[in-house]
């Protein structure tokens, strides 16, 4: 296996590879080619990269127009700006108008760490989940990222992909099957289930490893597709394990945890349940790692919560 790299790098490499074979693949950037690792793409395929400058509303509108004319468009911008500044363009010009733009939110969550909340996207799942006709993906590792990009390029409907810029440990073997809307069990277990997405999946795996030493057998599900959510995987976890702990690099409001809670409640499932994410407060200053540690998004922090909510030890 190759050494782990940032998902962002995998995205850029995969996209270049695809675009070299398909002239209709077009990238649109808002002065974000450097932060999107797309400098090389622009050098190799200058005619397939559209730069609109620091103008995210225009980025998404232009992307919609290109998609309406048959281009396979990836609109790439930091997730914080893409999903807030141009929210109305996403809602109307992409989703409502059904032009199949692949919106790519880079450096998502608290990837930008100490740059502060202007640069954090802790709202994007919540905002976009309420928009009809938009698939939402947050791949966990390099393998999932590559598979998600391949699936996105083949998809003919609007889609939002988000990932961070730190190198992430491998979660899956290289031959792990991937399909949009189908969660992946990264680790089997019968006591408690971690349901995570994006870069927090590997933290859940580490927590599960710690808990194994305490004879707590933890399942880890990578819920890489937040919408449509894999309800079957969730119900199965609720039936087969005693508690569910959700984990995300997002506000505790309106994201993965809230989506899971709604499914479980409406199916009458009863199990221990806890949402772990960034709490509803002024986010502390620090690197992504420091912010995670501050809010207990670490293997040790999760292990402590898991014990509290009662994954039954055998």
């Amino acid at each position, binding site marked *: 296996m190759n050494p782990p790299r940032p998902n962002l790098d995998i995205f850029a490499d995969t996209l270049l590879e695809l675009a070299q074979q398909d002239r209709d693949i077009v990238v649109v950037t808002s002065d974000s080619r450097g932060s999107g690792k797309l400098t090389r793409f622009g050098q190799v395929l200058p005619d397939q990269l559209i730069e609109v400058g620091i*103008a995210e509303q225009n980025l998404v509108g*232009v992307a*919609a127009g290109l998609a*309406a004319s048959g281009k396979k468009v990836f609109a790439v911008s930091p997730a914080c700006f893409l999903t807030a500044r141009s929210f109305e*363009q996403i809602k109307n010009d992409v989703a409502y108008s059904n032009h199949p733009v692949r919106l790519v939110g880079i450096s998502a969550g608290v990837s930008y760490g100490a740059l502060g909340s202007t640069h954090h996207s802790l709202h994007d799942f919540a905002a976009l989940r309420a928009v009809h006709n938009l698939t939402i993906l947050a791949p966990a590792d390099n393998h999932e990222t590559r598979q998600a990009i391949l699936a996105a390029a083949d998809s003919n409907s609007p889609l939002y992909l988000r990932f961070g810029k730190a190198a992430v440990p491998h979660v899956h073997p290289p031959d792990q099957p991937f399909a949009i809307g189908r969660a992946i069990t990264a680790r089997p277990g019968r006591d408690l289930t971690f349901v995570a997405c994006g870069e927090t999946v590997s933290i859940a795996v580490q927590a599960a490893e710690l808990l194994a030493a305490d004879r707590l057998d933890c399942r880890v599900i990578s819920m890489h597709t937040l919408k449509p959510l894999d309800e079957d995987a969730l119900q199965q976890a609720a039936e087969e394990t005693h508690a569910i702990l959700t984990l995300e690099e997002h506000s505790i409001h309106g994201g993965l945890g809230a989506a899971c809670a709604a499914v479980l409640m409406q199916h009458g499932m009863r199990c221990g349940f806890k949402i772990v994410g960034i709490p509803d407060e002024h986010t502390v200053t620090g690197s992504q790692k420091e912010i995670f540690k501050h809010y207990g998004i670490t293997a040790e922090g999760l292990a402590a919560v898991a014990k509290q909510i009662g994954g039954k030890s055998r």
Partner: protein
Amino acid sequence: MMNPPSLLQAKSVEYRKTVLRIIKQANAGHTGGSLSCVDILNVLYNAVLNVSPATFGDPDRDRYLHSKGHSAEALYTVLAERGFFPAAELDTLCRYPSRLAGHPTRDVPGVEHNTGALGHGLPVAVGMALAAKMDGRTSRVFVLLGDGELAEGSNWEALMAASHYKLDNLTVIVDRNGLQISGPTEQVNALEPLAEKFRAFGLAVRSVDGHNLHQLLENFSQVPFERGKPSLVLAQTIKGKGISFIENQVGWHHHVPTDEEYAVAIAELEGQTK
């Protein structure tokens, strides 16, 4: 395709009658703004645009975007008359569960993009014009903006990009009727000097009488006004054009005519065909 303006004059009157009739029936609609853009749509769809119901799926077709989506009644009226959908369907405007909503969507044959929120049409038009350039297609893109919506910053982002990419296959038309829902544009948030602003953004600008079919046809036929520049047609129009008591009245932005007003308005319009 080329219809002489003398033949189009009668169509404008018929379009205005239809616009009023369907707004009256629906008890909803944007009367003033629909009447101000009827002549522009008439010339575009009857004499300029290379698009028809048969060619609507053709990648080489010309595109029209109705950024001032609230004037949906004018667009629906012209599309129906051009055969994109049955004219009888106009009677379902805004009715449950009609596809003719108060703002146009792609559910309606002939509509390229869902509009209604302002400041959205132009960026999408820029994307379409870019795609045509990238593919070496002959198709052109026309987008109609209301003047009130020029306060939306997204328009100016898009104008910069249109100019940067030298999109001379793009024609931006501004329905400069001077009024918006709260009052005259110059009182709400002054737009002038508008032509100078567009020129400063790199567009080739022409000011035309937006109700003179000859002038509209002549200018639309001459795009691009300059090679390598997007064209901008500043169409000087009258909100509520065609009916004396509706013209230039802020209150008619989305006022629906009473029975009496409707009868007088139709009589006035019929007088114009004699």
